[in-house]
């Protein structure tokens, strides 16, 4: 009973380690290296999960069940919770929609589309996005032209567009 209860809370404890490491790491670096703090949090949370699971397996008599529980349930649960946490903090970092909402919420008189377009200058956003993608190697620049570099994002694009096609019957919200 105690083992089963402990096993239930293992992914939550690992997530708590993940969050604590990420927040402390990010704050110690004074708001720099956001992605590095996420990776560190995820890694140390995973180490925490493995340690707790190992201790539970050692303490348990029915080891076969414990190993199955750790590998099939708790590890995927931790991965899923970490993905949710990453998406949650990432939203606060990069979501245009969230920033716009925050902008509108902060002005009682409201905002016009033109003001918003000036604030979120699409060409400045494009430059920033291109620079980030070139730095990460996802896009290559040669003689003023841009090409696909690493193909990892292209794989993601194919999956997302296939899902769009199956579920929504179109490939883009602009179609």
């Amino acid at each position, binding site marked *: 009973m105690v083992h089963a209860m402990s096993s239930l809370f293992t992914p939550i404890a690992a997530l708590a380690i993940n969050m604590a490491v990420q927040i402390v790491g990010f704050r110690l670096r004074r708001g720099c290296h956001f992605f590095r703090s996420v990776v560190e949090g995820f890694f140390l949370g995973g180490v925490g999960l493995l340690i707790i699971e190992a201790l539970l397996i050692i303490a348990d008599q029915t080891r076969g069940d414990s190993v199955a529980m750790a590998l099939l349930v708790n590890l995927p649960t931790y991965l899923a919770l970490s993905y949710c946490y990453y998406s949650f903090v990432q939203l606060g970092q990069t979501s245009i929609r969230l920033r*716009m909402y925050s*902008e509108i919420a902060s002005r009682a008189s409201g905002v016009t589309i033109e003001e918003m377009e000036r*604030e979120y*200058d699409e060409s400045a956003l494009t430059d920033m996005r291109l620079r980030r993608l070139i730095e990460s190697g996802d896009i290559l620049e040669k003689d003023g032209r841009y090409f696909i570099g690493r193909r990892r994002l292209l794989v993601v694009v194919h999956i997302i567009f296939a899902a769009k096609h199956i579920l929504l019957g179109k490939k883009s919200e602009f179609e």
Partner: protein
Amino acid sequence: MQIFLTTCALLVVSVLAQIVLWKIRLPDQQIKALLVIFAVVFGMWLVGAIVFSMALLEVLHVGLFYMSVSLCYVITYSAIEADSPTLSLIHLLGEKRAQGCSGEEIARFLTRHSFVRARLAVLAHSGLIRDQNGRYVMAGKHSLPFRVILGFRKVYGSIPKGG
């Protein structure tokens, strides 16, 4: 093993229900509809688990596993529902292959796909903001999910304007 198989079965049922419902009629608020589907499927299973006297710890374990994977799916679905500028750009370059794109072509593509207007339209459609004499203002109270995200973001510091 039972927890794993039960959760997988629940997830498969939820996704199949979504595909069927989406083919019948695309909901206005897709994320909300998706959350309702996942909750209803879990609720129906929960009734069965209570009727068949399933152990409380197993129910909780299935609940945690199912909830975390469901949320992952819902989060990923938001990238399916609305176009990401970065992924749209990668798609464009992927289609052009060896020919590539010039800076002007990319700028033209992104101007045709005004992500700012599209995001404002989504916020208005979700009932979070409304158009009042040509100005977008808040519609009612602050959205709780947005408040939570913005509140948590303050742990790091203020949000810079623009991109």
